[in-house]
């Protein structure tokens, strides 16, 4: 039983092939899984582990380090209100409070209908639009309370469905060229990488007590 759809599995394989070490595909694969399923399910992590030849715990260990990768279900729209300092000065905290009132959930909560998850986020690099918010990583700001209410309406009514796809869909442009540089170079890369890794391990285990 495969988690990825055939189409996504193909993409997954392209991603895995992009790097000298396939584990590098971990984060891209997690995004791919979220684009398919909205969040990073247990099954997805298991399949990613298999694709990368590592343990599911390693996938989860890495994924859980990153705020964008959600191992629990989230709403169709992930609304992140920034309260970091530039937005704070522009009323970000008040916007977050308002958002919480309007959506009826505290930051971190998901509305009962599964439409919205509200998050308090750190600076999203749109400080010139303070206070700002992101919905599935599409940006809106500056937002007065009314603007926020309209935004929620637009999302609910589907008026924004073109520009704001469901949670998990990040880049809708996929790499259309597989790596083109000669396999030789890649092989050489891998050989050197392996040796460097071994040298590092050897150095480490030597340092680890200078034993033997």
């Amino acid at each position, binding site marked *: 039983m495969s988690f990825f759809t055939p189409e996504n599995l193909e993409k997954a394989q392209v991603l895995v092939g*992009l*790097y*000298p*070490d396939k*584990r*590098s*595909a*971990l*984060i*891209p694969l997690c*995004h791919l899984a979220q684009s398919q399923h909205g969040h990073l399910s247990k099954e997805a992590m298991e399949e990613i582990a298999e694709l*990368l030849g590592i343990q599911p715990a390693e996938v989860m260990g*890495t994924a859980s*380090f*990153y*705020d*964008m*990768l959600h191992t629990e279900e989230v709403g169709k729209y992930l609304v992140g209100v920034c*309260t*970091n*300092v*530039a937005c*704070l*000065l522009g*009323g970000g*905290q*008040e916007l977050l409070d308002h958002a919480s009132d309007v959506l009826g959930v505290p930051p971190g909560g998901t509305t009962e209908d599964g439409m919205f998850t509200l998050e308090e986020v*750190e*600076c*999203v*690099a*749109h*400080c*010139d639009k*303070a206070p700002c918010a992101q919905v*599935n*990583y*599409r*940006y809106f700001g500056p937002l007065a309370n009314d603007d926020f209410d309209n935004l929620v309406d637009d999302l609910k009514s589907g008026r924004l469905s073109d520009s704001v796809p469901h949670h998990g869909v*990040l*880049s*809708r*442009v*996929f*790499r*259309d*060229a597989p*790596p*083109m*540089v*000669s396999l030789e*170079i890649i092989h*050489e*890369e891998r050989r*050197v*990488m392996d040796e*460097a*890794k071994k*040298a*590092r391990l050897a150095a480490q285990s030597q340092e680890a007590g200078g034993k033997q």
Partner: protein
Amino acid sequence: MSDKIVTARVGIPNSYTIASYLEHGGYQSLRKALLEMTPEEVQAEVTASGMLGRGGAGFETGRKWSMLKQDPIRYLVVNGDESEPSTFKDHLLVENDPHQLVEGTLITAYAIGATRAFIYLRGEFALGLERVQTAINEAYAHGAIGRNIFGSGFSIDLVLQPGAGAYICGEETALIESLEGKRGYPRIKPPYFPAVIGLYGAPTIVNNVETMSNVPWIVANGGKAFAALGKGRSTGTRLFALSGDVLRPGSYELEMTSKTFRELIYDPDLGGGLKEGRTVKAVIPGGVSAPWIGPDNLDLPLGQDEVAQAGSMLGSGSIIVLDDHSCAVRAAWRITKFFNRESCGQCTPCREGSGWIEKIMHRIEMGSGTESDLDLVLDACDNIAPGLTWPPQQTTICVLGPSIPSSVVSAIKMFRDEFMIHIKEEGCPFVH
């Protein structure tokens, strides 16, 4: 010649497409570099430009490249993680002129002899990811990436890597770990200087998006032309991301040292001044890791060494203005909260200290602090950055640790009275 370098094409309709890019001289620098210059010559131009890295540490780019260990496999990684609060310049470049970034990256890869290049872009930049991926696809089709580029015999692949939401992955060694598919734990330097042991253990150059975006211009116009702009070590232009209590926040590309903080804030074409009747209370230059400067420093020119001499740093080029209606305690608390949320968690002082300091600061802001809390906070800060000097000493692996105290210590030093009012009046005197 326009006075803009990296934002010269911003504002042109469809500036992000290859058609528009080619129309405005795109990929000419890459052709020039690949077909007319040796890698050493490209490096020499960049060295001559004196360009300092735009990512925050402000290290000379040419010198960094010259330190790359000459192993057969070498990597180039472009740092587009841009997560330092109030820094919003790279996303502008990435969204409006992705080809410029791609071209700069390719030229750099050629100059340093990289065998593979990666652009690590902050995961939240959904639009940026689309724009850069499109640009890469178009560049492949145009023959600018891949095998035997423009018939020069030089081949390189360029991979776009999305981040996934962790500020610390902007730190170059954490970024490398993240690119290796791991938790973004900064590595210990020494021995893990990327130029010696970087991605997959191979020598690696990590450069910022803005740094890379300058490279095509330098190749086209020569390092000297770049060095002619600015003053001292601060050559060329920089993107200054201005935010906070100003009327016209935004990213402005300015010749370095050509303007002062005051001019940036008050120039009607730039910051546009403050709200009616307000005055500058403090400025946070160079990202929230930097110590604050007061109104007495507003006439400092926007230059690397000038700001350093005043006891702070130009860092990522972001400038936050606090006016006299804003609460210093609240700002410092929020910054601490940021570091607490973003600490990677390796180092005990950073992981635990950030949380503790945040709790004390919050207590003070909410009105239940005591006077002795100020000493406690300072002492906890001292245990992360011994001596509370600038540049800081540290008990941690990376400089996120000693960044935690910057704002707290600045705020207490500059606005002790305000803290005392919070404590005595059991609450924040400012209206938000």
